[in-house]
């Protein structure tokens, strides 16, 4: 590992050990590895759009005689690849169906957070001064609050629902978008082409929307991919604690939660959805960092 790191990925001083670790992964992926990552994500997206194609059984069909079957064991219906849960429902089918809500919440919440963060970041970075201080203090204030606890509080008070999740989760990510976009906007506004567009007669809206935004878009995209993973984890955490998604809806986090009391007798109910969640987050992270590294090298 050491050689590979020193050779390519961890190049340059000032790189943290975290960067080096990602660098090692990216190094292993080679130049085409991202295709595998994208394929995995496409599979997830496909599963959430047409779960019936992927799920071998009805995810709600119960069978008390064949509860807690281990991975690979069979019921009269056939082989249960990943076993069954305490009500005899096929775990694989439930994981496939759970992908939809898991992805939907993560993507929607991230996009909302990104929209808010990008807008604030552009405004703060371009105008600077008081606007900038106000918006950034707002972000810092929010970052300083333990948002996860606030989310639990809110969800317990208002009652858990998918809608409230989608309102609360963006609060976790918008400051990250705002910071990144602000830094880029601060750098870009000193560029001559921004001055040139003022001289041309562009309005502020045109400058923000047509000049700054397209120039920060690649970074936003990368950040989105990474943050979808983080939001996914947060949603899983909230659902695990019982304040997130409620049955009969299901997400991977909820599956983990449902399996937890049976961990000693049916490990697969907790471990397998956990692995899927972990792998998905890892893939999103890798893909984001991979693109970042590639675009950084190119431009």
């Amino acid at each position, binding site marked *: 590992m050491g050689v590979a790191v020193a050779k390519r990925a961890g190049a340059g001083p000032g790189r943290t050990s975290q960067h080096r670790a990602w660098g090692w992964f990216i190094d292993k992926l080679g130049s085409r590895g991202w295709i595998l990552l994208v394929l995995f994500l496409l599979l997830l997206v496909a599963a959430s759009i047409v779960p019936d194609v992927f799920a071998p059984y009805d995810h709600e069909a119960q069978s008390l005689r064949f509860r807690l079957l281990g991975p690979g064991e069979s019921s009269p219906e056939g082989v249960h690849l990943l076993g069954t849960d305490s009500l005899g429902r096929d775990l694989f089918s439930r994981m496939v169906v759970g992908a939809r809500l898991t992805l939907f919440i993560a993507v929607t919440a991230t996009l909302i957070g990104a929209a808010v963060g990008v807008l604030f970041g552009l405004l703060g970075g371009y105008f600077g001064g008081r606007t900038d201080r106000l918006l950034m203090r707002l972000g810092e204030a929010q970052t300083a609050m333990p948002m996860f606890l606030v989310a639990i509080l809110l969800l317990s008070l208002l009652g858990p629902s998918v809608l409230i999740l989608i309102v609360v989760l963006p609060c976790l990510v918008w400051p990250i978008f705002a910071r990144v976009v602000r830094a880029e906007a601060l750098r870009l506004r000193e*560029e*001559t*082409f921004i*001055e*040139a*567009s*003022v*001289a*041309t*007669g*562009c*309005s502020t809206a*045109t400058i923000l929307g047509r*000049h700054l935004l*397209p*120039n920060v878009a690649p970074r936003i995209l990368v950040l989105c991919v990474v943050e979808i993973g983080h939001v996914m984890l947060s949603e899983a955490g909230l659902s695990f604690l019982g304040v997130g998604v409620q049955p009969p809806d299901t997400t991977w986090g909820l599956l983990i939660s449902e399996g937890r009391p049976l961990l000693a007798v049916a490990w697969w109910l907790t471990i397998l959805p956990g692995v899927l969640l972990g792998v998905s987050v890892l893939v999103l992270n890798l893909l984001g960092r991979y693109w970042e590294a590639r675009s950084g090298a190119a431009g």
Partner: protein
Amino acid sequence: MSVLEVDDVVVEFDTDAGRITAVDGVSLHLDTGETLGLVGESGCGKSTLARAIMQLVPMQRGSVRLEDTDLGSLSRRELRRMRHRIQMVFQDPRGSLDPRMNVSALIGEPLRVHGIGDRAERAREVAEAMELVGLPAAVADRLPSELSGGQQQRVGIARAIVTDPAVLVCDEPVSALDVSIQAQIINVLDELRDELSLAMLFIAHDLSVVRHLSDRVAVMYLGQIVETGTASEVFGQPRHPYTHGLISSVPRADAESAARLRTARRLVLGELPSLLDPPSGCRYRTRCPYATDQCAEAEPPPEPVGPADGLHAVRCHHWRTIVSAAPEPQESATSQELAI
């Protein structure tokens, strides 16, 4: 009629080290179809003056009148609407173009933001502008990074002229380019000026470029214009020791080159003083071989050289006594030396 009148413009900046006056009471005017060359060393405030005229930096004092409209009195929106009448070409051709826009979008942007024409008309105008500046139609879909430096600057010029402005401000438009390309860009500007009857403020530190293009010349030193006049007056009979020094410092391949450079060294002593602590009285006195006590005490006002209604003016207490020998005529070698 003057299309552009700049009156007593002062621009100050706050820096970490203190307040500096980058432009200190500059007045100038431009007539239709006329080119004014503005020369001076790096850091003398040329570019800041250009930005002040374009209303890109705030002025502490003074006014900029474009076609009898005081730009400083306009609201932001009104100013924005006026901008198609005054456009600018920047020094850094690549940096002044949005890296994510292709050539036709870049050139078409001024038309789009000023709501000129419909889509088809704009496309026609863009194609026309590209032809005027000598850009092949094939580059219309390219990004700035896919163009050569000369082509990038042609895009910059096309963008500046596409709205048919009255005034074009060129801030060192060729100094970032290869020498072989410079001449091409200069020729483009030369032709456009005649074709579109543009009033042009041409800023450069390269005197040969300025001489080629300018009807009139203004010489700037530490934020002030120290000498102004027609190109032949200023280049032929410079009155200010700084102007004379600048002109003499241009290397030329002839027999007097070495003598001229000696003259330049004698007339421009030492380094440019800091703008943070400008000299009292005459700004140039710290580098001037003719400086006297009077120069330290009083700032010389602009005085007309020759007839009072003439264009030639100089800011020097001693211009009458410094008999400036013209560095321009080539016939006598002794004329290169300066007599007091």
